[in-house]
């Protein structure tokens, strides 16, 4: 009995042994099937993943081409900066490590969050850049603590810098990180998200030349992302360096001189200035964007630096010697991560520092347009050099009366004396006789009403009206009164300071339709400008008139002559009404410019060329709401021309 029981149990156990053996075989079969699935059925997929692990194609960003001024001084360059990177896999706890980093270097909470978000989207063995602008000091502080910071590493990168800062902001423009829209338009940018692209200025216009070609390195990397060996290597091709025609010496002087206008600079730190800064929102806005010039105006008030534009060009080559638009901004703010605060300050600044007034600021040319009207009249044969008209101080046309700026009138005027004294009535007369169409034709030939073609983006073409323009844009026909107003460069006429400089350069040049350029041209280079095709005798008359503005006994700018040592200059003032003066105001006696609110004051304009004989440089100056062209803009233009000749010479 016991024996049989024993036997039964033995049989049960034997059977169980077989069951266990069967289970072991079956389960091993499962493992085999699983391995077959991974290693045979899915192997190509995993091989791909393995290659992606193993090989890293690193795009090596090219060094961006540098910008130099005419004398090879650096205007835009590349600074080596240090990057702080983290590899999440090796930073045992990402959050803790980042918190620790934040206690050593500056690391905002928002950046920590974005790093963690990036880490979640990437394989953990990929490095993430935490900061790309470590200072030497921060680097040293991190280096001594590196033992406490697993997964943290450092690297070098290039960052765009503008050593001249705000001084050249409207010339260079700036480079800033690639935007999503740029990537959509240019897929090659996708691989270089850390590279900046030019957004404005020369940086934008010459982007293809400056960018260079990225290099590619195929590297075998280990799990920590560290390179083991370089498998193939195409070095990056750096972008081309560019030499600009701009002269930093002239540029610096021009920016100081334009912004000072006719007032006196005050020093910071005085109790009065501090008190004014605390209460005056406008001064605060200027100071917040780095504008550190404060002036005392004719009424003893503290006011911010003048805003406006000044541009100097070579009348033969078109090279721009100086290009200033005030207020200015620091382009270095844009190269990294532009702070919201800085962007707001720039964008909400009442005087719009980001606007390049030279090419995109539109101003009625005022009396500086009189050369155009005079040339059109001379060419049309409406007048000759000696044709006289009598200025009584006003000109009637139908029911309207058009006033001359001088209440009592100028008396008998010819074209030269009319330019010298800027007689409005004379130009009303000849404008009416010449007609708007011929005036427009002359204006276009002198470079107005169309983009000049200077190497800057966003250039405005301005407006030179005509019968067709009026009908198309206003829906009504042109009236003779509008021709009268256009005769003194007001009404619909709008120009940019760049256009006015080109106009002046072409008048001085006489032969070529000079086109401005920001690139330095080699000496003796052949200029391929279209012929200007304006009669030399007519131009000579106009030049004589412009000379009389400075050297005539009644010249509107004869207090601001350019010394003989510079060879003298010829120019034309322009005072542009921003707000129409009403009849009531006229009867009360015109309020002095300075007693009106700033935004209602006249713009002060001046265009000039120098020297008188064999002219070389042309300039246009606009001081916004600066008062009269003679008292404010003329001395600015004279001083900048003097500096230009001193720095660049006349040969």
């Amino acid at each position, binding site marked *: 009995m016991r024996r049989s029981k024993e036997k039964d149990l033995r049989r049960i*156990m034997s059977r*169980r042994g077989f069951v266990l053996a069967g289970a072991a075989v079956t389960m091993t079969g499962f493992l085999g099937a*699983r391995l077959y699935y991974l290693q045979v059925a899915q192997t190509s997929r995993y091989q791909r993943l393995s290659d992606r*692990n193993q090989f890293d194609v690193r795009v090596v960003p090219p060094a961006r081409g540098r910008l130099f001024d005419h004398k090879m001084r650096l205007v835009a360059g590349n600074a080596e900066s240090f990057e702080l990177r983290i590899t999440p896999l090796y930073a045992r706890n990402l959050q803790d490590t980042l918190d620790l980093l934040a206690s050593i270097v500056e690391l905002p909470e928002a950046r920590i969050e974005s790093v963690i978000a990036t880490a979640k989207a990437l394989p953990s063995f990929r490095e993430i850049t935490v900061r790309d602008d470590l200072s030497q000091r921060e680097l040293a502080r991190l280096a001594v603590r590196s033992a406490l910071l697993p997964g943290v590493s450092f690297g070098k990168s290039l960052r765009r810098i503008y050593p001249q800062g705000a001084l050249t902001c409207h010339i260079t423009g700036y480079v800033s990180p690639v935007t999503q829209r740029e990537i959509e338009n240019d897929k090659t940018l996708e691989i270089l998200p850390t590279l900046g692209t030019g957004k404005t200025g020369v940086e934008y216009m010459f982007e293809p030349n400056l960018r260079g070609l990225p290099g590619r390195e195929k590297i075998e990397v280990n799990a920590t992302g560290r390179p*083991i060996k370089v498998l193939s290597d195409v070095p990056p091709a750096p972008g081309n360096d560019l030499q600009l025609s701009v002269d930093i010496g002239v540029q610096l002087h021009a920016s100081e001189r334009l912004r000072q206008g006719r007032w006196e600079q005050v020093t910071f730190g005085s109790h009065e200035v501090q008190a004014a800064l605390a209460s005056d929102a406008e001064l605060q806005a200027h100071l917040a964007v780095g504008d550190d010039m404060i002036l005392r105006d004719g009424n003893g008030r503290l006011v911010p630096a003048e805003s406006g534009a000044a541009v100097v060009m070579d009348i033969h080559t078109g090279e721009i010697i100086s290009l200033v638009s005030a207020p200015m901004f620091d382009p270095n703010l844009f190269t990294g991560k532009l702070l919201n605060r800085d962007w707001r300050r720039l964008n909400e600044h009442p005087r719009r520092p980001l606007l390049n007034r030279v090419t995109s600021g539109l101003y009625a040319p005022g009396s500086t347009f009189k050369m155009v009207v005079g040339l059109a009249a001379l060419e049309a044969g409406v007048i000759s050099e000696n044709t006289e008209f009598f200025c009584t101080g006003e000109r009637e046309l139908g029911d309207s009366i058009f006033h001359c700026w001088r209440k009592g009138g100028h008396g008998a005027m010819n074209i030269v004396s009319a330019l010298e004294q800027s007689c409005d009535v004379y130009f009303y007369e000849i404008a009416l006789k010449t007609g708007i169409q011929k005036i427009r034709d002359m204006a276009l030939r002198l470079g107005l009403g169309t983009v000049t073609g200077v190497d800057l983006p966003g250039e405005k073409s301005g407006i030179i009206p005509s019968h067709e323009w009026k009908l198309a844009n206003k829906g009504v026909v042109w009236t003779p009164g509008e021709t009268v107003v256009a005769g003194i460069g007001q009404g619909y006429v709008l120009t940019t300071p760049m256009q006015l400089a080109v106009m002046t350069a072409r008048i001085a040049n006489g032969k070529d339709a000079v086109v401005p350029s920001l690139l330095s041209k080699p000496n003796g280079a052949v200029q391929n400008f279209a012929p200007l095709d304006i009669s030399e005798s007519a131009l000579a008359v106009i030049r004589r008139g412009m000379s009389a503005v400075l050297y005539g006994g009644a010249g509107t700018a004869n207090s601001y002559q350019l010394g003989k040592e510079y060879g003298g200059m010829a120019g034309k003032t322009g005072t542009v009404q921003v707000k129409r003066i009403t009849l009531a105001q006229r009867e009360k006696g015109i309020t002095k410019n300075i007693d009106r609110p700033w935004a209602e004051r006249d713009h002060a304009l001046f265009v000039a060329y120098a020297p008188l004989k064999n002219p070389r440089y042309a300039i246009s100056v606009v001081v916004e709401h600066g008062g009269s062209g003679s008292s404010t803009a003329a001395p600015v233009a004279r001083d900048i021309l003097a500096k230009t000749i001193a720095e660049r010479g006349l040969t």
Partner: protein
Amino acid sequence: MTLWRILFRIPWHILLIAAVLVVVGALALYSASEGSWQPWAGRHALRGAVGVGVVLLMAFIDFKLLHRFSYILLIAALIVLAGLLVIGSGPNVSRWITIGGVSFQPSEPAKIAIILALARYFDSQPQDRMQSLIVYLPALAIIAVPFLLVMKQPDLGTALMLLLGGLSVIFAAGLPWRYVGGVTILALGAMPLLWMTLHEYQKSRVMTFLNPEADVLGAGYQIIQSKIALGSGGLFGKGFLMGSQSQLDYLPEKQTDFVFTMIGEEFGLVGNLFILGLYLALSLSILRISYLVRSRFSQLTCMGISMMLFFYVFVNVAMVSGMLPVVGAPLPLISYGGTSMLTVFIGLGIVTSILIHDRQED
């Protein structure tokens, strides 16, 4: 028994398979350290040689001695395991004990102690009571207490193998089929309970296993990299020392838990199946010995050790190929680790001793 008789009866084929596995392990570790005997491969081979010596030594020990000390062994193991929870070394993990500079994992020999204790327990039970459930409850306790202690360490992998090894002994002892079904249902029912006792990191491992891509950074990294390494190995592998995943450190723990993956990357499916075949042969050979021996103790011990070895392999391979969560289970005789290897060789020694001293023909 004469020396010659003992030598004649030694299961040389089992020792041969074990030796081949140790050599495979040494080669794999040589590759894991980028072609160097340091720091793992040399010591591994040395330990293997010591292990073979242990087996040969144990051939001369009468299995009755094991029978006599089996309960004491279990109690000793339980005391050490309980003690570990109080004084274990390592932060938050009390798996290791250090005596005189030598660290070892007491949970490894505990596996064998459980098998021996269960075998002795069932050996002592009258034949006619084997159909009743009451007999199996103390056996469950023998498993449950060390299982819970190891879980608490926490070492989910070893606890799991301990449980599977123990349950297979109960099954082999003849647990009626109706109770087999009951235990299965009980085990499934206990899973939510088990889930609650798990540590955070263990829970995250399980969640990661269910969806590794959700946590590419953390625990999912290992599973993903292991699958990439295995899969990219293909049919024949990338060649010895050529596994890019392993050589470039993408594969974590390649000298211990993920050594099978490394072999798979360098030798492909062929290499992996060869190793699985060796393990299956080893387990089945030990299982076959249970048919040659006399006592129930001997039979159950052989079956238990056979299944323990099998589950060792199964849990590890299932884990590295993404079929089980990463629970931390080495591959016997191949993974680097002294305690695990010694445990396997002691198991083989016990089987040898039983075969020599408790053969049916005697």
